[in-house]
């Protein structure tokens, strides 16, 4: 069976949920091989989890250089591994950095890059949702398909794999070292699930009114076990960090449930959330465009509706 390369993302020695989804999805195309690109020691920490999710091999490319230069070195290494393994496909999670790595890898392999797939067929055909979910297309890539898969497209399931480690020779070109990462700045980090991975998201917009008032959004999120998101109006006002922005230039999400509180539903916001499975909105303006998308909407003041919702959910969860 042909190998399928899976670029696995991790943080602090733990696989991201997206990596477990990719390893699961890869099994329908062939035999999953994990690719770990990172600082020395990364693969060691992940070995158990990679075996648990069915990685037959683990390609280990470790160097401090990967943390020092942007994107290009990772694409170089991924293309080199693909050159040796001749995989049936290469899968990455749909994040901005991974899409850039994937596209540059496809370029080097003279292959095609398919972005933001929501479904994969055995022959490598990808289903993509375009124009804000209005059209669904089936696409194919030539050569070795390089595909980025949206979060929550498949449910991760464990399967034992040998996770045999294969170390990868590292020799980066000078050109790959053109863009140097000189600092990494972390803005407020919360203990809630990340937007990318969450299956429920509660977002607040300008209607929330202040940083302090965001408590109301967080209460609903915590009752539902959800991640907190925001519109650009709320991130621009500095009420929450910009990493929480959902939309065209923020994070694109497709959770099981998206709750919009005090968000009007501008086209740039919709671009990032309108393929959510179920959408609920609270807005005091009954003409807000968000109601055109909502499966359930309440016209009212979020400061009375949201706390009641949080309380009711907690009560029912007992």
């Amino acid at each position, binding site marked *: 069976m042909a190998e399928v390369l899976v670029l696995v993302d991790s943080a602090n020695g733990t696989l991201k949920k997206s990596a477990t989804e990719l390893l699961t999805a890869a099994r329908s195309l062939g035999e999953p091989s994990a690719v770990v690109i990172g600082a020395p020691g990364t693969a060691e920490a992940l070995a158990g989890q990679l075996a648990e999710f069915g990685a037959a091999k683990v390609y280990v490319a470790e160097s401090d250089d990967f943390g020092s230069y942007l994107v290009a070195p990772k694409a170089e290494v991924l293309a080199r591994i693909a050159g040796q393994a001749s995989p049936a496909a290469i899968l990455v999670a749909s994040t901005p950095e991974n899409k850039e790595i994937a596209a540059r890898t*496809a370029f080097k392999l003279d292959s095609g890059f398919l972005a933001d797939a929501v479904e994969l067929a055995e022959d490598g055909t990808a289903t993509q949702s375009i124009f804000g979910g209005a059209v669904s297309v089936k696409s194919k890539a030539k050569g070795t398909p390089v595909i980025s898969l949206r979060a929550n497209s498949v449910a991760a399931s464990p399967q034992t794999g040998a996770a045999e480690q294969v170390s990868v020779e590292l020799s980066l070109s000078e050109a790959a070292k053109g*863009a140097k990462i000189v600092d990494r700045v972390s*803005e407020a980090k919360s203990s809630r699930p990340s937007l990318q991975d969450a299956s429920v998201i509660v977002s607040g917009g300008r209607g929330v009114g202040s940083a302090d008032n965001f408590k109301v959004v967080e209460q609903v999120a915590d009752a539902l076990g959800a991640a907190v998101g925001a519109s650009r109006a709320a991130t621009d006002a500095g009420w929450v960090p910009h990493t929480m922005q959902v939309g065209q230039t923020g994070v694109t999400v497709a959770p099981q449930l998206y709750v919009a509180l005090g968000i009007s539903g501008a086209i740039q916001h919709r671009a990032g959330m309108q393929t959510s499975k179920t959408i609920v909105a609270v807005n005091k303006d009954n003409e807000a465009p968000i109601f055109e998308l909502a499966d359930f909407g309440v016209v009212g003041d979020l400061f009375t509706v949201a706390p009641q919702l*949080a309380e009711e959910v907690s009560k029912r969860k007992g």
Partner: protein
Amino acid sequence: MNIVVLMKQVPDTWAERKLDPSDNTLDREASDAVINEIDEYAIEEGLRLKEAHGGEVTVLTMGPQRATESIRKALSMGADKGVHVVDDALHGSCAITTAKVLAKALGTLDYDLVVAGVEATDSRLSVVPALVAEATGLPQLTGARKVTADGSTITIERVSDSGYDVIQASTPAVLSVVEKINDPRYPSFKGIMAAKSKPVQTVSLADLGIAPDEVGLAAATTTVESFEVAPPRSAGTVVKDEGQGGVAIADFLASKKLI
């Protein structure tokens, strides 16, 4: 500092967008065409860098004939000249081909910095700037919410999933910007008048030494096999809060087994 801004003309996101059933490509005639919104921020950033450091701003686009309208708009904002790669053979080109063509066109220009938008609203790929960096071999500085230029060193703040990274490269380099970077100016009346006499160079594939069979639908690295128009989201229930709005939502969530 000479700057080339990569600008794409896209269908207006407010208009209905369609695929052409004859070849499954975007029907660019079906809707109004505008400058890709984020590319206006790229143009603005190019103009600000020029105002601070001198030089010229050239707008480069690959697209159908009507993309000249968008080039004129960029010139009316203050760009100095336009380069329009237009050729019927380009129809249906994939992102990788687009980047190769843009890289060839860049090869005919004199520049220190390439400035692009982070994402086109039609393709929603967010990869063409990275691919242009790949094709030219230049450093990739993408996803910038802030740019500073100091001599030949360019420093950006790149949006990351936990905050931002500070990235540095020497010119020439390829930059892409997010909308947080600035507020694009509106063309002034004077700008609109001046744009009429600014040069726009039309470039064909032959001019770039590219054979027609290297581009377009037939050479594309990705192909759309079929498409389906998704059933429109049926309008849901909207109720007015009369004291029980939160409970009504909880009932709805329970009926959907979401709680």
